[in-house]
């Protein structure tokens, strides 16, 4: 007997889990949803990421999307918890004249959005974080950012979804091998654990989303893996309590990439992001480099980012590093996530391509996609994120 499902979500990262989480709350509790992932739940990009919930003020649409998602995260924390949510805020630092000049600009951007941020002088900075390098003269503090453990958050979302929708099946270690079509429409998903008859499929496979599109006979989606090297200290390795970011992070991470993502000779770059965790560990990032699916550590980039982190938080020099690793961010060519239907294949939906904002935007992505699937009004205008912009 062939298994049937109303909906199959492919990809058990934060986006796939959030899609399921939101669908389970919007659709009738009799809906049969199957979530499949070829590896563990949260085993790829989500399990390798920093878990920064980041509100970006520099662009009105981006602000609206990130603030909406961060509010959903706060709701989940208040309702369930269990994913080490920490309201660390973000302390934006700078050490060049040009970047120091950006600090008040950043504060003004938050204020212009009706939000609040504070410009700190040297004394206020020292009071907030005595462990910072003594030469730092100013910083911008934004209280709205937070930190979560994404892999635990995936579990929290799925468990809440299972409670709301008993027909939800979560199937790790179950790779998608192909699809059956009925004319244009989807008819079934063939997986390593059997065929699932369904007319609705969500592609939430991040850096593998182009591969899944290809399996469906579609052109490859313009999403490219962008590698990041990370290190984490042992439990007594955090010299700061606030999350640190270089102010240059915003243009480094979210501005236009200086290189062509299809090339593999990108030498890469970095901007400091130091993140204290609730157990006393400290995550140190972040680097960015296009080099295909290669997940081997780039020692040189890692060293450069550790040096820079140490420049702001000198206490990190004595902190023991427990582990280093590489994660792959799904970089969409126009730097906007893909959230919505894929018109050439009726029944196929896409939620992918969030680069370094996948954890921040996970909840709102799941919500916007679920609202589109359920045919109800969206919280935020989804037009800029519709994948149809990439249809020939």
């Amino acid at each position: 007997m062939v298994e049937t499902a109303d909906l199959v979500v492919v990809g058990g990262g934060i986006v796939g889990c959030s899609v399921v989480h939101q669908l389970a709350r919007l659709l009738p509790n009799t809906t049969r949803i199957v979530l499949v992932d070829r590896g563990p739940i949260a085993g790829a990009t989500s399990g390798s990421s920093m878990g920064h919930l980041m509100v970006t003020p520099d662009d009105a649409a981006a602000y609206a999307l990130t603030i909406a998602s961060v509010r959903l995260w706060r709701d989940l924390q208040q309702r369930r918890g269990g994913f080490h949510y920490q309201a660390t805020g973000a302390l934006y630092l700078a050490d060049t004249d040009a970047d120091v000049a950006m600090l008040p600009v950043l504060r003004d951007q938050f204020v212009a959005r009706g939000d609040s941020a504070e410009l700190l002088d040297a004394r206020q900075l020292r009071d907030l974080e005595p462990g910072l390098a003594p030469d730092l003269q100013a910083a911008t503090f934004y209280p709205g950012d937070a930190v979560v453990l994404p892999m635990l958050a995936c579990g929290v979302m799925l468990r809440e979804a299972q409670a709301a929708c008993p027909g939800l099946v979560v199937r790790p270690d179950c790779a998608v091998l192909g699809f059956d079509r009925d004319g244009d429409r989807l008819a079934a998903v063939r997986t390593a654990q059997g065929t699932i008859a369904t007319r609705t499929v969500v592609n939430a496979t991040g850096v593998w989303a182009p591969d899944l599109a290809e399996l469906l006979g579609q052109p490859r989606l313009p999403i490219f893996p962008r590698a990041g090297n990370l290190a984490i200290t042992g439990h007594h390795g955090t010299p700061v309590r606030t999350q640190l970011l270089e102010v240059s992070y915003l243009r480094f991470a979210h501005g236009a990439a200086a290189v062509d993502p299809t090339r593999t000779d990108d030498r890469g770059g970095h901007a400091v992001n130091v993140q204290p965790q609730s157990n006393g560990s400290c995550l140190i990032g972040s680097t960015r480099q296009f080099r295909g699916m290669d997940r081997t550590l780039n020692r040189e980039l890692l060293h450069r980012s550790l040096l820079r982190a140490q420049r702001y938080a000198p206490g990190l020099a004595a902190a023991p590093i427990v582990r280093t690793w590489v994660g792959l961010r799904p970089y969409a060519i126009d730097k906007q996530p893909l959230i919505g239907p894929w018109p050439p294949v009726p029944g196929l939906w896409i939620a992918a391509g969030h680069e370094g904002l996948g954890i921040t935007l996970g909840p709102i992505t799941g919500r916007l996609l679920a609202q589109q699937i359920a045919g109800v009004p969206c919280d935020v205008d989804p037009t800029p994120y519709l994948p149809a912009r990439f249809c020939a």
Partner: protein
Amino acid sequence: MTDARVLDADVGVVGAGPAGMVASARLAAAGLSVVVLDEGQRAGGQIFRQLPGGAPHPARGAEPPSHARGDTLLAAFADRDVTLRRGATVWDARPGRLWFEQDGASWLLRCRRIVLAPGAYDRCVPFPGWTLPGVVTAGALQVMVRGFGVVPGQRALVAGSGPLLLPTVTALTGAGVEVVAALEASSRWRALRALGGVLGNGGRRREAAWYARRLLGAGVRLRWGWTVFACEGDGRVQRAVIGKVDRDGRPRRDTARTIEVDVVGAGFGLVPSIELGLRLGCAARFVAARGGHCLVVDGAQRTSVPEVLAAGEICGVGGAEVAMAEGDVVAGTILHELRGIAPPAAAGRRAAAERRAADRLLAAFAPLPGLHELATPATIVCRCEDVTLQQARDAAALHGTSARAIKLGCRAGMGPCQARICGPSLQALAAGRPDQPMDLPVVQLPVRPVTTATILAAPAG
């Protein structure tokens, strides 16, 4: 901190235990330059522990006869021109290169051959109360008495499985500790099968007789088919619940009784320390009776990676006799490769014979799957991250049953021990598959935690 600290040697040896000492003494005797890296403060490894100078020594005869070999070996090792780097933590390697941290400084050892002889560590089985201060591994008690001359307590419980329980008990009684109970989880029936491995070997026969006399003299009876069910106390261990287990190690709760103790040593065999080998890319295989994943070596103790050799527990737990014989083979292989000296065939035969004898003995103490029923849902399984068995089970049920999936789902194994303590039992406990081999651990940089400064100051190699 930034000046380059680079050493050059013909051979770099990791571990100054029996295997590493035999190999390095022979290589140095033949004129090769040898640098030995060890985390301890003195040579000898875990088995031939040396006390700090001037520390109280136990009376003559307090050590088993086999340890006399340690004295000979330590003397030979000290005579040779071997450079021993004490307190050295090796955190990265590739063929011909070993990076280590010593006294806060970052070093690189460049060498033509690497010998991996890092030994093994205690296999832990979680039980309620095993995180209480005063509850330690069996190995920890031996280190305390034989490595530092410290008296562990007044009333001790020793529980676990395997040949290392006996030296733990005799170390304690030799230090004047009352051993309230000595519990071997394996059944006497299984032990009988091991007698072939003991009685067929003259050295092991004398050793067994020595332990029997010592236990009798101290009035300690080793109880077969018993183990520790739980430890209790206010801020430190004060009581232990002990009882019988069935042949598979399942606790028989109706036999439980409480004893008053102030120190507990628990050790359920050993786990080979293979992480550095995995970092080097060496092939490994799972052999339950040898402690789990072991490096694969050929008859000349060569690993699957050129110029990397291995000896002793890293190739599978076997004890000091095996380690010394394999260390000898390693020396022969390297002298052959670098000096063209034909290796003596007898060395290989002796090592193989010691392995066979050890395998027969250890077969009696293969891990018992039922011991995983000692833990309750509230028992901590990952000590570093405070993860309970229930959390690990929930993770396995949702995220997947691979070791990595369980880790992702509850953070077990993500702390500073890098899953060395919880790893060997995590999958069995969380995924309910006690009879299947655990996944091969994934080794990431650094192989041991070292400071940011050490990583940044690492000489390029």
